[in-house]
């Protein structure tokens, strides 16, 4: 009985892996990059100076308000993001055009907090664009991506649970990795990567589903609120109470100095607690200012928000971070998933765990192919088209995606800074390189493709610091003395990644020597 249960769960585990493995690898890699999003952002905008976190944000707010007043006095909405920690290391403003104005009047800018002048940076999606593909994918309508990613996440949850069920000797095998034993080694690697990071994998998967729960389980809300979209809106308004908004009056009125409101919020919340200010209908008689606390202060992804009247300064509403146990549970799951609160040591563990998740998937897929290939060579099964497809997809995704990401970084340095649609072109470069990897994987024998694409990855990442030196002044010889650790760290990590892929290529070559194919 138990054996048949195990058998059916093993079947399910294998099928879920085959159907969703490659997509989940993409999700894991882009998600792991998300834990380093602002660091990647900064490397891709070398024009920005070394980040500094001023003890008082008053000057930053004054300068930002002056800038916005001169550039977008009658916009619909202003956002001022203050440089308080690694999640937003620079003073950053954005504005939405006036309702009657052209959409082109919206924009964003990085500002120097001392002088208030804009720092001109190249148009790039940065690390944010990479990370957002984690749930939005690319080139697909948002709703479509949501469903695809959501279904893949549910599949991952099932794969994890069935994997635990199937792993007969989960404790006895806990520290076991036997290298150079072919299929056995791949299974060991798959088991070690999964079990050693199991708490993270379960957390990241279930919390990922919770991110999407409003869209995926509307019937649950309908049970208490009734059917229809209007009922869903009532439910959402109860979970996220609206903040004393008011439609624009159409009459002009002077917006008071925002640092007064900032100071009031700080008095209530404590030092360095304000992360951003949002102004709705600035310079209007019904202007509203939302002062937003730090979402990343702790594992709970929630913060208090204070709403003020933008003209009189009167405090109108406060939404507390804590609203109820169930909401706090949701906020905790989202906070753990995003890891924005994580200090450097914990952040490093997040990155390690994300990479282990990618290794878990890759070793699983390779194991399946190695098993089937061995069976085919012993004459027991035909090497069917599905096996050949899987072998090619393995290399094109597991090595090809890193190559494509390397191409994205190369495009960031090589495309002229004044070019139109630069940010989109960088993304096109990523996918063009990836498409090339798919084509090469289709044309070459599988093992050769592994070696070649590993070499591409080694070159793409290994030479990136050199490219950086050739195209900007923020290369390693400059960033290390300047204590620009984000810049230096990226270059050094790039070298390490290049070396790792070179090592992989060498290992494949040694394995190949016995088979003499290319």
């Amino acid at each position, binding site marked *: 009985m138990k054996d048949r249960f195990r058998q059916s*769960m093993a079947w399910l585990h294998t099928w879920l892996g085959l159907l969703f493995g490659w997509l989940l690898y993409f999700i894991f890699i882009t998600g792991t990059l998300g834990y380093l999003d602002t660091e990647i952002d900064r490397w891709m905008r070398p024009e920005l100076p070394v980040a500094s976190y001023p003890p008082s944000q008053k000057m930053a707010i004054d300068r930002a308000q002056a800038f916005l007043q001169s550039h977008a006095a009658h916009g619909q909405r202003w956002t001022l993001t203050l440089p308080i920690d690694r999640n937003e290391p620079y003073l950053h403003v954005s504005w939405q055009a006036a309702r009657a104005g052209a959409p082109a009047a919206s924009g964003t800018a990085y500002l120097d907090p001392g002088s208030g002048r804009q720092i001109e940076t190249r148009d790039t999606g940065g690390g944010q664009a990479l990370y957002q593909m984690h749930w939005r994918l690319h080139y697909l309508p948002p709703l479509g991506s949501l469903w695809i990613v959501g279904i893949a996440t549910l599949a991952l949850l*099932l794969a994890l649970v*069935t994997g635990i069920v199937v792993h007969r000797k989960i404790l006895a095998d806990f520290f076991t990795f036997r290298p150079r034993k072919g299929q056995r080694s791949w299974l060991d690697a798959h088991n070690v990567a999964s079990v050693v990071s199991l708490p993270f994998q379960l957390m990241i998967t*279930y919390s990922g589903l919770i991110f999407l729960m409003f869209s995926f389980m509307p019937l*649950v*809300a309908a049970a*208490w609120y009734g059917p229809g979209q209007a009922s869903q809106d009532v439910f959402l308004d*109860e*979970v996220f109470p609206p903040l004393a908004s008011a439609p624009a009056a159409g009459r002009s009125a002077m917006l008071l100095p925002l640092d007064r409101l900032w100071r009031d919020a700080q008095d209530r919340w404590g030092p360095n607690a304000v992360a951003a200010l949002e102004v709705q209908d600035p310079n209007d008689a019904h202007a509203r200012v939302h002062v937003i606390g730090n979402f990343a202060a702790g594992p709970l992804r929630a913060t208090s928000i204070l709403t003020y009247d933008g003209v009189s300064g009167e405090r109108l509403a406060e939404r507390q971070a804590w609203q109820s146990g*169930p909401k706090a549970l949701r906020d905790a799951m989202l906070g753990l998933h995003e890891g924005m609160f994580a200090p450097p040591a914990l952040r490093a563990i997040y990155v390690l765990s994300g990479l282990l998740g990618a290794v878990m998937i890759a070793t699983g897929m390779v194991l399946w192919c190695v098993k089937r290939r061995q069976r085919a060579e012993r004459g027991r099964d035909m090497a069917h088209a599905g096996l050949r497809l899987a072998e090619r997809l393995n290399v094109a995704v597991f090595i090809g995606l890193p190559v494509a990401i390397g191409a994205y970084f190369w495009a960031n340095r090589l495309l002229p800074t004044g070019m139109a649609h630069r940010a989109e072109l960088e993304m096109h470069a990523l996918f063009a390189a990836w498409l090339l990897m798919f084509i090469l994987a289709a044309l070459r024998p599988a093992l050769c493709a592994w070696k070649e694409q590993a070499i591409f990855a080694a070159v793409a990442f290994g030479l990136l610091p050199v490219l950086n030196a050739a195209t900007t002044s923020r290369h390693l010889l400059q960033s290390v003395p300047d204590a620009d650790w984000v810049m230096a760290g990226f270059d050094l990590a790039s070298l390490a990644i290049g070396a790792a892929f070179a090592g992989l290529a060498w290992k494949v070559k040694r394995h190949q020597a016995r088979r003499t194919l290319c």
Partner: protein
Amino acid sequence: MTSAHWNVFSRCLAAVLGGYALASTLPVAIVAACWGGAARSDAVLIAMQMSFAVYAGAIMWAFSAGSARSAWAGLGVLVLLSSLVAWALL
């Protein structure tokens, strides 16, 4: 299509559709029964967060049940019971 293929196809349908139905009804029944006094929004939040565990369990049942018929039967009975409980309590 062979009978083995029908078996798999039927179980897949049971898993996806039956599982979704169970994930949308069983948590509602449980929360209505155990947290009857909670505020509406909190009840929905608890039930939604529970629903994915139910969905996963339902899918595992669909593929491990003795036959495709018992997969559907098991899910169907639970969905019916949950709906009755939920309707009675809400």
